C-alpha cells in the first residue's frame, strides 16, 4: 500500500505496559505535524483525535483525499494557529492509520492480530503518545487539546503527566463514560459482529470486509453526534430525489440516504476491528474510578490552566458531564475556565464551523500564549 508513504511513523522502542497486563515495545506510532517548533520549543500543542479521527488534523488528508477532521479549527490564522503553534497529532494505538493496531501483523502468527490484539485503554493511548515529546525534544507542551475521546485523552494526559502541559482544553467530553454511551458503542460493536464477514475478526485472511456491519455501526453513531433539532432543520421529512413515497424500503427520505452515504464512505477509511478496540477504550474510561471515586485527585498535582468547553445540544457528552470536570478542578483550586457554547449541531459541534466555539478557543490559546511571553 503506497498510502503508507504519506504516514510519518515513530517506532517506540521503550516498553509500554498496557492496562490489560501485556507489554508492547518497538511499536509504530503514526503522527503528523503542522507549523514549526520554535527555538524555545515552547509552542507545541498536542491534539488528540476522537473515535474515528486520525493524525491528519487539517489540510487534505493524504489517504482519504478529504479535508482533515479539524480543518475548521486548525490551520494558518485559525483558532489553533499553525503560523504560531507547532501542532502534533498522533493516530491512537488501536487505530488504523498507521499506529499499532489490530490490522497489524502479529509476528508470531504472521497473520493480522484481529481480536488477538490486546485491549487498549485511553491511558495506554496517552502513555504511547508521551513518547512524541522526547522525540521532538519538548519538555513542556503549550497545550493539550481534544474533543470527545480526544478530551478524555486530555484529562488522562494531565492526570498522568501533570507538569507536561501549560494549558489543557478538554472539549465535549466526560471523566467517566456513561451507561448511555457504552450502550451506543455496544450497538455499534454488535452490528459489526453480526456481519457474517467479520468472522470473529479474522476477515483479513479471508480477503473480505464486514462493511455492512461497520456501516450500520457508523450510521447509528452518526445519529448520536447530531441533535434532534439539527436533524429536523436539515432534513425534516424531505424526500430523496422523488416526488412521493415509493411504498418500499428504498431510501425514500433524505435522512435515510444521508445516513447510508455516511456509512458507505466510512467503511472505505476505517477498520472494523479498530472500531471495536477504540470504542472499548472509551467504554473503559473512568477517571473517577481510577482515583477511587474522587476525580479531583486526578488533577491535584497540576498547575495547568484549564478551559473546559461544552455545547448546548450535545446529548452524548452533555454540559453537566463537562461541568463535573470543572467542579473537580475547582475542588483542588485549579485554574479553570468554562463555557457552554450555544449550538444546535449536537456533539459534532466541536468539529464544525461554530463561530462562538472557534472564537473562544482562539482567544483562550492566544491570550494564554501572550501571557507566558510577556
Amino acid at each position, binding site marked *: 500500500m503506497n498510502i503508507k508513504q504519506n504516514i510519518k511513523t515513530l517506532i517506540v522502542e521503550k516498553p509500554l505496559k498496557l492496562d490489560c497486563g501485556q507489554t508492547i515495545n518497538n511499536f509504530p506510532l503514526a503522527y503528523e505535524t503542522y507549523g514549526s517548533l520554535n527555538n524555545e520549543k515552547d509552542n507545541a500543542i498536542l491534539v488528540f483525535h476522537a473515535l474515528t479521527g486520525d493524525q491528519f488534523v487539517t489540510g487534505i488528508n493524504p489517504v482519504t483525499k478529504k479535508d482533515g477532521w479539524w480543518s475548521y479549527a486548525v490551520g494558518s490564522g485559525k483558532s489553533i494557529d499553525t503560523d504560531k503553534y507547532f501542532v502534533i497529532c498522533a493516530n491512537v494505538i488501536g487505530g488504523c492509520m498507521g499506529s499499532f493496531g489490530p490490522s497489524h501483523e502479529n509476528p508470531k502468527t504472521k497473520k493480522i492480530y484481529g481480536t488477538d490484539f490486546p485491549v487498549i485503554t485511553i491511558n495506554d493511548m496517552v502513555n504511547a503518545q508521551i513518547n512524541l515529546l522526547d522525540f521532538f525534544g519538548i519538555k513542556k507542551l503549550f497545550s493539550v487539546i481534544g474533543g470527545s475521546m480526544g478530551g478524555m485523552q486530555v484529562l488522562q494526559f494531565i492526570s498522568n503527566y501533570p507538569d507536561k502541559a501549560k494549558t489543557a482544553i478538554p472539549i465535549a467530553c466526560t471523566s467517566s463514560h456513561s451507561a448511555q454511551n457504552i450502550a451506543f458503542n455496544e450497538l455499534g460493536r454488535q452490528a459489526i459482529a453480526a456481519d457474517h464477514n467479520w468472522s470473529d475478526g479474522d476477515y483479513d485472511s479471508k480477503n473480505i470486509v464486514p462493511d455492512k456491519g461497520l456501516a450500520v455501526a457508523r450510521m447509528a453513531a452518526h445519529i448520536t453526534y447530531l441533535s434532534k433539532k439539527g436533524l429536523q432543520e436539515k432534513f425534516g421529512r424531505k424526500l430523496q430525489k422523488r416526488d412521493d413515497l415509493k411504498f418500499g424500503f428504498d431510501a425514500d427520505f433524505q435522512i435515510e440516504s444521508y445516513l447510508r452515504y455516511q456509512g458507505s464512505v466510512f467503511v472505505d477509511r476505517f477498520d472494523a476491528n479498530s472500531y471495536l478496540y477504540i470504542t472499548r477504550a472509551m467504554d473503559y474510561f473512568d477517571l473517577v474510578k481510577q482515583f477511587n471515586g474522587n476525580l479531583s485527585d486526578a488533577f491535584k498535582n497540576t498547575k495547568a490552566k484549564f*478551559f473546559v468547553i461544552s455545547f448546548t445540544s450535545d446529548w452524548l457528552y452533555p454540559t453537566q458531564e463537562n*461541568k463535573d470536570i470543572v467542579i473537580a478542578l*475547582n475542588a483542588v*483550586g485549579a485554574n479553570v475556565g468554562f463555557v*457552554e457554547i450555544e449550538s444546535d449541531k449536537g456533539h459534532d459541534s466541536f468539529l464544525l464551523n461554530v463561530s462562538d466555539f472557534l*472564537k473562544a478557543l482562539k482567544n483562550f490559546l492566544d491570550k494564554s500564549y501572550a501571557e507566558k511571553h510577556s
Partner: protein
Amino acid sequence: MKPEYKIISDLIEKDAKVLDVGCNDGTLMEFLKTNKNANIRGIEISKEKVQICIAKGLTVIEGNAEFDLKQFPNDSFEYVVLGQTLQAFINPETVIKELLRVGNKAIVTIPNFGHWKVRLNLLFKGTMPITNSLPHDWYNTPNIHMCTIKDFVRFSKIINFKIFKSLALINENVSDINNSNLIFKNLFGELGIFLIEK
C-alpha cells in the same frame, strides 16, 4: 469603569485570591489584576460576557451564582466580590452565606433603594422608581429583591454576619457609614459597599 471599582480595589490586599461573582465583562477583574496583582477568577451567567472575558485572557466560569457557587470548597478565596447583583437573586440569604463559605471575606455592593431620588420618584410620580442605577421598569427588572443601605445593615443582624467596613458612594465620593450617620447615608448614598465576614 464604575467608580466603586477603585474602592473595592482599596479593600483588597496585594496578591490576594479573589472570586468576582457576576463578573460581567471582566472590567473589575482586569483592574484588580493590574492594580493588586490579584489571582482572580470570575463567574458569569451571560455567554456573551464570558466570551468577552475569555478574549481578555481572564479565567471565567459560565454559571449561575445562585447554584454554581457550591462547586467551590470552603475558603477557596480570600475575597469574594458581589457587585450590584444581590438584589437579583431569588434567595439573597443563601447567596450571602455561600459567599462567606467560599471566601474568607466578601465585598458586597448594593444600589441603595433608600436614596432620596428613589423615594421622591415613588412619592411624587406614584410609579416604581427608575433612576440611572435602576433603569428598568417594574415588569422587566432583574432586580427582584431591592434593599436600602439600612436594610442591608439590618440583614447582617438577622442572618448573622459581621460588617467589617461599610462605605457609601455619594457623587463619586466615598465615605464611612456608622451608626450615627446611617440615616443620612441611607438618604444620600447611591451605592452601599460592604466588607463582610462570617
